[in-house]
């Protein structure tokens, strides 16, 4: 189990780089990262379902100019890992599979906002690199720019890795316990909510593409 949690976090750190630090080839989107995690942990189809639901729900969250939006990748990685690692142990009764997914989803969604606040702190601290480089240039150390770049990339990776590790670890440990405490009526409600979830995702997607006449241009 520990090995699986570690490798899922490692993948989480890697695809986390793609959000903004390196590339933007979109392996960080939930539709790719969740199935990737699912494939790694031996449950591709669950990963794909989680990926589609999250992708639809985060569709209209975009970064414009210098704004940092909440992070969809960490949610996808944590949610897909926790579900893939613990679902089999909990869903002896297959009826409540959807309820369990709903619990995991509801508790991993806020991670995006928490991750964002850490991200903003890091980007504020990154300004120190500018002044460091300014000093190094006066000494004629031209290689400093490469060092700064690789070091900062490493920091971005480490942040994603540690954050995923904590989130997945806590989730794998506590969520099955929490789930077994829930009363039957809540479970039924969660099951209905899970079946209604695609409607929520499609509503967000609808709003992403629909331009209402009075708005004129895209609202972001």
């Amino acid at each position, binding site marked *: 189990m520990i090995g699986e949690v570690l490798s899922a976090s490692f993948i989480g750190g890697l695809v986390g780089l793609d959000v903004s630090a390196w590339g933007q080839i979109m392996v960080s989107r939930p539709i*790719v990262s969740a199935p990737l995690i699912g494939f790694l942990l031996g449950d591709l189809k669950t990963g794909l379902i989680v990926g*589609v639901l999250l992708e639809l729900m985060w569709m209209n969250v975009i970064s414009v100019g210098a704004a940092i939006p909440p992070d969809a990748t960490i949610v996808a990685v944590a949610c897909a890992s926790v579900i893939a690692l613990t679902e089999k142990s909990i869903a002896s009764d297959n009826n409540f599979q959807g309820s369990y997914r709903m619990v995991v989803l509801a508790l991993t969604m806020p991670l995006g906002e928490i991750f964002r606040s850490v991200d903003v702190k890091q980007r504020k601290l990154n*300004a120190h690199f500018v002044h460091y*480089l300014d000093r190094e240039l006066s000494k004629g150390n031209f290689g400093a720019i490469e060092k700064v770049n690789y070091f*900062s990339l490493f920091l971005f990776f480490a942040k994603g890795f540690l954050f995923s590790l904590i989130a997945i670890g806590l989730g794998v440990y506590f969520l099955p316990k929490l789930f077994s405490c829930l009363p039957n009526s809540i479970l039924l409600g969660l099951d*209905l909510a899970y079946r209604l979830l695609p*409607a929520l995702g499609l509503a967000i997607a609808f709003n992403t593409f629909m331009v209402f006449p009075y708005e004129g241009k895209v609202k972001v």
Partner: protein
Amino acid sequence: MKLDQMDNRIIKSFDLYRLFWRAFSLQAVWNFERMQNLGFLYILAPVLNKIYPEREKRVESYRRHLEFFNTHPYFADVVIGIVARLEEEMAMGKGVKPEQITAVKMSMGGAFGGIGDSLFWATWRPFTALVACVLVIIYLKKWEGAWLVPPIFLFLYNFLHFHTRVKGLLEGYKKKTKVVRLFKKMEYSRTISSSRLVGLGLVLLALIVLFLREWKGMQSVYFLAFFLAAVFLNRWRFSSIRLLYLLIVISSVRAYMV
């Protein structure tokens, strides 16, 4: 004009490959003070080292690119191409001034930043992701090829992405600021409006497929009612996470009462 036919160049094709490769880490040291400045300098560093062998001029050029810079990461390649060419011409004494380079960086960065945000972030990414999602929704139950969906998305999306990068870098280097005309001709606004229309159709298709397949009897009313409620609540700045919690509360209350 082919690259090889341009005379008297210090920057060779190999250097352009390096620029292209390094351009991926444009935002590696993104900071709130000057945004993409360090990434831009990192990308340009090998070229600057090559065209300014003497220390004084090299420090000066490094400092020049330590200034504020921000644009859309894909369109940064255009600006990189233009700036590489201008730096090269300045080093060869063709009458380019340092202020000119800074001005080009600022104006191009701002203009392409706007195009990039509305083309890639607001349209192309949601559109290609939606295509992938709708494929899953329609075929998942009976489809063995589900693993193909992420590669299909990546291929569709990155087709336009890499096209923009490669074309931007090459044409920016060759044509300098005249490259703006080329990007004007590419009619991005048409791509945007048609993607929106097709996207809307796909959403409705997925909605109908789900509705007919998964819902029967009285309960199907919930599905449509919740969809409509979510559309309008989301318009009033109700984010998806709040809608998710609202959904859980409503469903639990209903289950409790029945």
